[in-house]
């Protein structure tokens, strides 16, 4: 929160935060110089900042919320890493294979490989910094079962692993003395001669603008879930990094793949979409329809038949004897389970509030449930009056994660724009068409560290020849940010447009898609983009959520167009993209990435799409399949 670096102008400052206290715009801009600016303070952002700091760079973390509140805090299940603490036969090759198969082979193989190889050490590092993981009887880090993972592999702390991770990284960041700009939103990234030169932001508290002079920017902004009506994501998830990357000239891939987590709460309305961890199923929970049937046995796809139990007896046996039994179909990858639940509900076999039943009450004792799933117990008890040790939960699909993101180099996480890096959910490629549970937290750590190091080295290699921020760009960024205060006629309410966008995306670009609906969605998004040119806000610049939303909303519109456009183009069904009119996976599509760019560099410009061949996996890795 304290700010260092050069500053210009200004007078009164907050004694603790160093924030400028006045909100007038005539006192000049606050200005700071860093080597690396990390946007976002979730798991990947903090890990990147720590790595860049360790590599000798001067680092700032800039985040929309308070430190420690990022969406990582919501992650429940665990961190996937083949540490082999419970199953010595687990290793990176098995993890790599699981990840590729879960993503239906559309993953960037190199990212999946690095991820599987480096995840165990990243977990041990967290322990080094103070994380207290649950233990095995031998005192090692415990590992739990999750969908799509062959062995129990997720390092965890009850069902609040994300909180442990964010707190550990937060505390380490603070201990290292890294500067954190909290409640500060980046609206533009500057370039000079094709390379990154800095960023433009505003303090949410005062509305004042901040300029960062920095040759390297790491995007760690998370996902896009707020573009859907039913989502497990928070207000921050407006695709800021995705849009910033496009506006800066970088490209996105895999945007048609959106993960709908199979189990979100469905009732009461206020909590609709909030996540119910996959650990419930990993720890023995069964999915049932209104007729009491474990319907997942009817939805085992050919692709996973060999490794999935086809009888209740075998599935039950798996929890205690994994060698001689195959895994229950409840633990198929998330895309399979979400589609199955969707079909059951559509067929009229849903629960009273439009979900299906997730039952752990009749399968595990109360003490076990409360110990393994304390947050779930608390969440249902407090918010839905449901005691999950006594009755089943009602659950249904909720928009949870976007597989797509900035196209990056697998080893360095640099985008096609020199100096611009992306990591975590905002980066694309790692998870292919569907992400396995637990692979997100490990992704944040593995690639966060890589991005931080590489950004620092990139700056080091510049040897003082730093690109500079152009004053004309600063003026334009300020004008764009302030535009919502200038609208006088035909004013549009940002809250209304956001709601309309969520309705369009939920209805027309949801779990099951078809051509006509996607075409309609694109028309609707176009109309919303037109209306968004007239976004207007009331009040002044000091902590004004209406204004903040008006700015974030333009990012949501760009990202939504990308999703719809790519979904229309990909005429097959694979992972998190299901086409009613093309229900099967198509091998030729299995070799193709869809790449999206923004020609005009402005949110109102149309999105361009092109096809690009998938990187080819080397033969020694192919042998694993």
């Amino acid at each position, binding site marked *: 929160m304290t700010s260092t670096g050069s500053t210009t102008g200004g007078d009164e400052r907050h004694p603790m935060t160093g924030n400028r206290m006045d909100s007038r715009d005539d006192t000049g801009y606050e200005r700071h110089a860093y080597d690396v600016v990390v946007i976002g303070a979730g798991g990947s952002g903090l890990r990147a900042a720590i790595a860049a700091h360790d590599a000798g760079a001067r680092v700032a973390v800039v985040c929309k919320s308070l430190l420690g509140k990022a969406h990582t805090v919501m992650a429940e299940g665990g961190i996937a890493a083949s540490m082999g603490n419970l199953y010595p036969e687990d290793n990176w090759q098995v993890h790599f294979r699981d990840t590729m198969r879960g993503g239906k082979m559309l993953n960037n193989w190199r990212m999946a490989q690095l991820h599987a190889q480096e995840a165990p050490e990243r977990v041990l590092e967290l322990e080094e910094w103070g994380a207290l993981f649950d233990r095995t009887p031998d005192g090692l880090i415990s590992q739990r079962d999750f969908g799509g993972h062959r062995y129990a592999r997720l390092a965890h702390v009850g069902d609040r692993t994300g*909180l442990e991770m964010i707190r550990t990284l937060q505390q380490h960041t603070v201990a290292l003395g890294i500067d954190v700009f909290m409640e500060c939103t980046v609206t533009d990234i500057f370039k000079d001669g094709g390379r990154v030169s800095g960023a433009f932001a505003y303090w949410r508290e005062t509305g004042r603008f901040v300029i960062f002079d920095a040759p390297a920017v790491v995007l760690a902004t998370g996902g896009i879930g707020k573009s859907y009506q039913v989502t497990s994501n928070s207000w921050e998830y407006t695709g800021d990094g995705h849009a910033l990357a496009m506006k800066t000239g970088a490209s996105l891939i895999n945007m048609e793949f959106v993960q709908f987590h199979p189990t979100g709460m469905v009732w009461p309305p206020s909590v609709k979409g909030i996540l119910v961890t996959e650990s419930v199923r990993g720890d023995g929970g069964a999915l049932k329809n209104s007729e009491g049937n474990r319907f997942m046995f009817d939805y085992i796809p050919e692709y996973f038949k060999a490794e999935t139990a086809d009888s209740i007896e075998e599935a039950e046996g798996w929890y205690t004897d994994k060698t001689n039994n195959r895994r229950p179909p409840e633990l198929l990858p998330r895309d399979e389970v979400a589609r199955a639940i969707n079909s059951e509900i559509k067929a009229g076999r849903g629960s009273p509030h439009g979900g299906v039943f997730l039952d752990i009450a009749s399968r595990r004792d109360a003490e076990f449930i409360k110990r393994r799933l304390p947050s779930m117990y608390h969440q249902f008890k407090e918010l839905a009056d449901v005691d999950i040790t006594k009755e089943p939960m009602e659950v249904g699909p909720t928009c949870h994660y976007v597989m797509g993101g900035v196209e990056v180099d697998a080893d360095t996480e640099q985008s096609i724009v020199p100096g611009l890096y992306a990591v975590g959910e905002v980066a694309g490629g790692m998870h292919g068409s569907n992400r396995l549970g637990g692979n997100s937290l490990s992704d944040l750590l593995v690639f966060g560290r890589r991005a931080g190091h590489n950004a620092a080295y990139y700056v080091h290699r510049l040897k003082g020849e730093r690109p500079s921020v152009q004053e004309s760009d600063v003026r334009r960024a300020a004008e764009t940010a302030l535009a919502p205060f200038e609208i006088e006629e035909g004013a549009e309410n940002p809250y209304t447009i956001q709601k309309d966008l969520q309705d369009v995306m939920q209805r027309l670009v949801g779990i099951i898609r078809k051509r006509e609906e996607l075409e309609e969605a694109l028309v609707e998004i176009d109309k919303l983009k037109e209306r968004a040119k007239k976004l207007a806000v009331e009040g002044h610049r000091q902590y004004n959520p209406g204004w903040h939303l008006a700015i974030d909303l333009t990012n949501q519109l760009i990202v939504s167009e990308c999703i719809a456009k790519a979904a229309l183009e990909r005429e097959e069904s694979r992972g998190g993209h299901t086409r009613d009119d093309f229900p099967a996976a198509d091998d030729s599509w299995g070799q193709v990435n869809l790449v999206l760019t923004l020609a005009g560099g402005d949110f109102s410009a149309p999105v361009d799409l092109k096809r690009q061949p998938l990187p080819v996996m080397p033969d020694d890795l192919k042998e694993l399949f």
Partner: protein
Amino acid sequence: MSYDLKMRVWRGDSSGGALGDYTVEVEEGEVVLDAIHRLQATQAGDLAVRWNCKAGKCGSCSAEVNGRPRLMCMTRLSDFDQQETITVTPVRTFPVIRDLVTDVSYNYEKAKQVPAAKLTPRDPDGKRRMMQVDVERGQEFRKCIECFLCQNVCHVIRDHEENKQAFAGPRFFLRYAELDMHPLDTNDRRKLAQDAAGIGMCNITKCCTEVCPEGIHITDNAIIPMKERVVDRKYDPVTWLGSKIRRRDQRDEV
């Protein structure tokens, strides 16, 4: 099943403010934060409020609802009579920035003063071993979501701005206790807990424990044991002598 809810919400900034009267349509099963959001979307676009997860996990939406410190996302409207007017004000211990948003930087400053964990070296196989029973005490404290409601209700600082300098508050006594109970940490922070964090000023009225949305037994499990450890260090002649001869479980005073 919707109905019209009468609300009074504090609007203003550091220079002053007042309760504003609103009527907002709400649904069965909603929480106070839903009502605030609807106000924002339909009547008061610039109403300032912090929130993130809306599931009681991030600790952002702390406020005082009818005078009681709560997380707005976990305060259900069904706990109130439908005729009742619900009053929402910002937490009182921290300076107001705008409307329901307060300046909680005090907590972030205090966080900087706690030396981090410094563990013993790894075992020869590159891993570390700790028993579940030994990590559980620390795990209880690490459930803390940093909503700062415990800080908000703490008598030592709630109406005593002058104590803030010398007192870190319950949230950080939790942190000191967690690190002190870490099976492999090598730092001894007892002197710091006494001198810099001012744990001696706590008079264990348990207000922090009562208000904790995570149900952490702050007073009984963290503050009291930590006070005892601090006292051991200071007054027990055997411990004092021991500390001169051999460090307490190999920890270094920081």
